[in-house]
């Protein structure tokens, strides 16, 4: 099985837009090694390649969508209560440029 190297982690950190400290890379490297060992064990199970990935363990036929009714909105003061700082009820954050959609 492929080893997760520091370079791999750096690459993912960049792609996932995380800034990481040097010691965090070391921790991650070690943690991934453990995880991969487990994966290696699992991959040795007989017939494992025929098992489909499982997302939902049970098929629930009773799932209903929500009726389109608007209610129970938060008040603005509650909504921004945990914000470090607000300006005119908007949440203030360090300047960000660019973005996704």
């Amino acid at each position, binding site marked *: 099985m492929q080893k997760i190297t520091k370079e791999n982690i750096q690459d*993912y950190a*960049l*792609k*996932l*837009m*995380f800034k990481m400290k040097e010691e965090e890379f070391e921790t991650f490297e070690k943690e991934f090694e453990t995880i991969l060992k487990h994966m290696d064990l699992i991959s040795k199970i007989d017939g494992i390649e025929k098992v489909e990935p499982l*997302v*939902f363990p049970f*098929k*629930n*036929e009773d*799932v*209903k*969508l*929500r*009726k*389109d*009714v*608007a*209610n*129970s*909105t*938060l008040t*603005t003061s509650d*909504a*921004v209560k945990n914000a470090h700082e607000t*300006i*005119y*009820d*908007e*949440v*203030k*954050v*360090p*300047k*960000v*440029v*660019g*973005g*996704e*959609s």
Partner: protein
Amino acid sequence: MYKVTIGLEVHCELESNSKVFSPAVNGYNENPNVNVAYQDLGFPGILPVANEEAVKRALKVSMALNCKTPDEIIFDRKNYYYPDLPKGYQITQMTKPVGINGYLNIEVNGEIKKVDIHDIHLEEDTASLDHYDTYSLIDYNRSGIPLIETVTEPCMHSKEEALTFLETLRSLIVYCGVSQARSDKGQMRCDVNVSLSDTDELGSKVEIKNINSFYNVGRAIDFEIERQTEILQNGGVVEQETRRLDDETGETFHMRSKVDAVDYKYFIEPNIAPTPVTCEMLNEIRKTIPMLQLERKQMYKSKYDLSEYDSDVLVKVKENSDFFNECVNLGADPKKACNWVTGMLMGYLNTNEITIDKVPIKPVMIKDLIDLVDSKTISSKQAKEVFEEMVNSGKEPKVIVKEKGMMQITDDNAIYDVIIEVLKENEEQAKEYNPEKTRMIDFFVGQVMKKTRGKANPAKTMQMLKEELAKYNK
């Protein structure tokens, strides 16, 4: 010359009462952070539940785009960190979108072109950010508004095709009644992929993200064609990258290259259990899809023999086209109904800057008005007067005609008596009558109309006058 290939990714907000995964109001509010629920802020401990109406509306557009629909509704997480996305991921669809492998016919320069749809998926909108000199502000009102993203195959080859596709898609969404799809309100946004090549293979894909108007889509395509042509002509290689459009200059600039492409680590959203999509549900939705703009236009031209121009005018706004269809269904002659709707009615709507639902006029009134003219009860000039009254008061044309005493005199004897009277009063002119001089006959018609207060049938009056005047000059 290089072959231009364009693909589009079009986002459109759906209208509904509540948001796609939370019960907060889906609507514009100028006050920030008013329409927000726990889910929109990414607070823990409360789960998203998909909105039935948003799912149905997305499926409706999917079917209108001739897409294959899924057997169940499931969502995926698109992971990335950005302040407009409080959960750290966007709930979207990738594994089983609401539609795949569809198409939309568009009309470019009189020719029908089929634009292939790769997929259409339902997702949540992000919060909106306002950028200032040293900080940014977040308003979560937009967070969680249902959004459909339509992704085309790279199959368009000019700016014109791309813009026509956008207009046609916009019209489809509006015709389906799922959104007003107004780009000026930020309801429609677009990513454009442009590549140039002089071989059969596609060139490097350059994506221009988040364009806020069709006008700017056109500018971005123009700029990219020019920029990439210059690179290729100078023997260079176009880099596969993501760019942004500067609204002010109309130029695109580098945002990120392929090597730093974000890895979104998609996986199925485990917090929303799969909901089966039944045939019954799809059939119910299918019934609500109206005949679309292009089909209507083709029908008007082939079945009703209307002109290209008139057909275009009629289908531009669905409600106007519906109104016209109803007139015809009631038995009105299509050409006459078209004249009334595109002429007087739309003229009135445009002058007053209102929509048809604001006018107390019903299709049956247009039909009745046409009948009144056809039966020569009123003249076409009088019909215009009736129309003015009708559009303001909502009274039926027959009532107006009666109230105003407009019934035309078609009885030969009654008209004859008036003609004789007029000729007696104007004996001199009658003797000088010359059939070559149309102005003279107009004078006599005018006199008859004056005496009957416009009620004499003009055609009949004219014909009888000519006969009587001929006798005078024998």
